[in-house]
C-alpha cells in the first residue's frame, strides 16, 4: 500500500459535503465507473487512491488499518473504536453532518424527564415485573459507556437490543421499551411518539477527517499526506482568517506595530500601508482600534488560502507515529 488511501462516504449529503470539502482545498474527487463506483482518486496530488464506502465501513476500515484517512461521523468512530489511542486520530471537525446521539423514550412516559428518572423506572420495573427495560440501538458501546457514567450497568439495569435500522419503530412494535439513536432535527423521533430525555444527549456528533494510525505509513504515503494536508490547512486558514489593510499616518506606525505585534507588515512612509492576516472573529474589534488610531481606508478581504511553513496536522501525525 504505497498509495495514500482515503475513505469517502459513497452517497448522500455526506458524500456531497465531502466532495465540497476537498474541492475547496483545490483537490477534486474523481470516481471510476460513474456514480456507483467504489474506487476513485483525488486530482491535484500524486499517490492518492479514494475508496467510496459507507460511513460505518469507513470507521471499521480505519480501525483495521485499511485506510490512511477517512471522512466519517464522530458517532461512528466512538462506537466502533471506544479506545482511539493508537488506533485512530480525529484530525479536524468538518462543519457538516451534525447530529446528536440521544436517548429517547415513549412520549407517553410523562413521568420520565431525565436519565435519573429512567434509572428509577429501571429499578421499579425490575421489582414489579422482574425484567429490565430494553433499549433498541446500534450504538452498543456508546450506550454502555454513557449509562455507565450514570451508574447503570448492561444486563443488570437494562438490556441492549441491537438494531441496525428503523430503530425509532421498535417501541411501537414492542421489541424494545426505548431507544438510543442519532437525530438531527428530532422530527423522526417525534413522529414515532418518542421524546428525548432532558439530559439524554450522549454525543453531539459531526463529520470529521480521521487518520487511521494502524495503516501502513510508508514514506510515499507520508509525502502524499503532506501534500493533502498542506492544501487542507491552507484552505482552513484561509477560511478562518481575513486580510486587513489600512493606511496608517506616520506618527501612528509604532503604536500600530505595538498593538498588532509581529504579524503585521507595514511598508511605506506617510501614509504607511498596513497589511495583516487576522482571525475573522477579530476583525470588528481590530477595525475599531485602527480607527481610534486614525487609520484610514480600512479594507477587509476574504482569503482563499493561507500557506504557512508548519503544517500542524502533519506535525501531529508525525508525533503520534514517531516519524
Amino acid at each position, binding site marked *: 500500500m504505497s498509495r495514500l488511501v482515503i475513505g469517502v462516504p459513497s452517497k448522500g449529503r455526506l458524500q456531497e459535503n465531502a466532495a465540497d470539502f476537498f474541492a475547496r482545498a483545490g483537490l477534486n474527487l474523481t470516481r471510476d465507473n460513474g456514480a456507483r463506483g467504489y474506487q476513485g482518486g483525488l486530482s491535484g496530488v500524486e499517490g492518492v487512491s479514494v475508496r467510496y464506502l459507507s460511513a460505518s465501513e469507513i470507521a471499521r476500515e480505519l480501525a483495521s488499518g485499511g485506510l490512511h484517512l477517512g471522512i466519517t461521523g464522530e458517532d461512528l468512530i466512538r462506537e466502533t473504536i471506544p479506545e482511539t489511542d493508537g488506533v485512530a486520530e480525529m484530525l479536524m471537525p468538518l462543519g457538516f453532518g451534525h447530529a446528536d446521539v440521544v436517548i429517547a*423514550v*415513549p412520549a*407517553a*412516559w*410523562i*413521568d420520565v*424527564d*431525565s436519565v*435519573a*428518572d429512567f*434509572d*428509577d*423506572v429501571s*429499578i*421499579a*420495573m425490575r*421489582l*414489579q*415485573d*422482574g425484567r429490565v*427495560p*430494553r433499549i433498541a440501538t446500534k450504538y452498543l458501546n456508546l450506550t454502555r459507556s454513557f449509562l455507565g457514567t450514570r*451508574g447503570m*450497568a*448492561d*444486563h*443488570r439495569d437494562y438490556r441492549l437490543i441491537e438494531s441496525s435500522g428503523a430503530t425509532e419503530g421498535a*417501541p*411501537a412494535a*414492542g421489541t*424494545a*421499551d*426505548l431507544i438510543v439513536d442519532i437525530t438531527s432535527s428530532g422530527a423522526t423521533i417525534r413522529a414515532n*411518539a418518542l421524546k428525548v430525555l*432532558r439530559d439524554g444527549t450522549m454525543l453531539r456528533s459531526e463529520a470529521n477527517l480521521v487518520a487511521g494510525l494502524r495503516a501502513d505509513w510508508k514514506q510515499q504515503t507520508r509525502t502524499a499526506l503532506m501534500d493533502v494536508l498542506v492544501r487542507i490547512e491552507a484552505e482552513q486558514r484561509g477560511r478562518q482568517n481575513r486580510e486587513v489593510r489600512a493606511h496608517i499616518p506616520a506618527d501612528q506606525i509604532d503604536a500600530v506595530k505595538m498593538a498588532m505585534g509581529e504579524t503585521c507588515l507595514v511598508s511605506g512612509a506617510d501614509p504607511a500601508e498596513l497589511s495583516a492576516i487576522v482571525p475573522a472573529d477579530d476583525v470588528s474589534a481590530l477595525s475599531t482600534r485602527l480607527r481610534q488610531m486614525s487609520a484610514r481606508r480600512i479594507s477587509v478581504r476574504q482569503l482563499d488560502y493561507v500557506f504557512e511553513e508548519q503544517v500542524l496536522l502533519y506535525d501531529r501525525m508525525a508525533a503520534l507515529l514517531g516519524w
Partner: protein
Amino acid sequence: MADALQRLADLFARDGFKPVDPPILQPVAPFLELSGEDVRRRMFLTSDPTGRDYCLRPDFTIPVARAHHEAGGGAGRFSYLGPVFRYRPDQEQQSEFLQAGIEWYGDNDAAMADAQMLTLAIETAALAGITDPLIRIGDVGLVAAFLDALDLPDIWRRRLWRQQGRDADFATCLNAFGDDQHIEQFPALADLLRSGDVENATRVVEDVLSISGVDSVGGRAPRTIAARFVEKARLAAGEGISDKTRDLLVAFEAINGPHDAALDAVANLAGEAGLDIGSALDTCRARGKSLRTAGVDLTKVRFDCRFVRPLDYYTGLIFDLHHPDAPDGGKLIGGGRYDALIALIGNGPSDPAIGFSLWVDRLFGGDAP
C-alpha cells in the same frame, strides 16, 4: 499448601459439607445480571460455535447454586475448592487463582445457621494460623427494615436502596437528588394532583393517558406511569425527605462499633424515632447470642451499618474476615446470607442460602502481609 488444603477439606467434611465441582465454563448471563461491577468488569468471555456466550467462572456461588437448582434444589451443604478467573493486569496477582468455600441451602433457622457459618469461617482462619482475625459484619435485612420503617415515598426508597450497590452513602444520595424541576412545568396539574388523595390523583392521570390513546406503550401500563407521575408531583411539593428523616438516615449509617453496642445504638435510634424494625433487629440479636454461645468474643466483632455488598441477592448477614495486621488489606474470607439468589437464578421461589469463600493464596499461600 497441600497439607493445609487437606485440613481444610477435613474441616468442611466434619460439618457435613460435600465437595462439588461445577463446570469452569459457565453461561455468562447470570453473572452479567447478578454480579457486582468489579467481577463483571474482569470476566473472561468466550462463545461456542453457535454463538452462545460463556465465561470462565469468576466465582463459585452462582455456579454451585445453578447446579443445585438444576438438581432439584432443597436443603444441602456443599464445599468447593478450585480455580476462578478474574482479569488482574498487575503482575502481583494472577488472573487465575484458587478459591475455596461453602454453600448451605435450606436451613430455616437463620440466626443459628448464620452463627454456625461464621464460627466455621473463624475456624478456617485458625487453620491458617490466624487466631485473632478482624471480623466485620453488617446486615442487609436490618438496613431494609430501617428504610421500610421510615415509610419513604417509593422513589426515595428505591434510590436509597440502590445507592448501597453504588458505594455512596445515604447523605451523598440525599444531596445528589436535589431539585427535580420537571413537574414545575405543569403547575396547574401539579396543584390538582396534590389537592386530592393519591388514589384519585392517580386515576385522573390514568384517565387522561387513556383518553390520549396511550395503551401500554413501551411496556409500562398507564397506571404505572400515572402513579409515578403523581408521586413526583407530591415530592416536588416538598413531601419528600424531611430534615428529621434525613438525620435519622445519616445517624443510622454512622453506627459502627463493637457488635452489642452497635445493635443497642440501632435500637435506641429506632426507639426514639418510633420506628418498628423489631424482627430484623431480633434476628441480629439472636445471631449474636448464638455466636456468644459458640465461644466467639463479640467485643472483637464490629457491626457496621454501612457495610453492604453491591449485589442484589444478599438479604441478611454479610461478613468479612481480615488479617489482624492488615485491616485494609485484601479480605481473607467473605460471605453472608443471600436468600434471594435461588429465586433470581431459577425464576422461582426463594430458598434460604448462606455461604462464604476464602482466598486460598492469601490464607495459606505464605504471602501474608
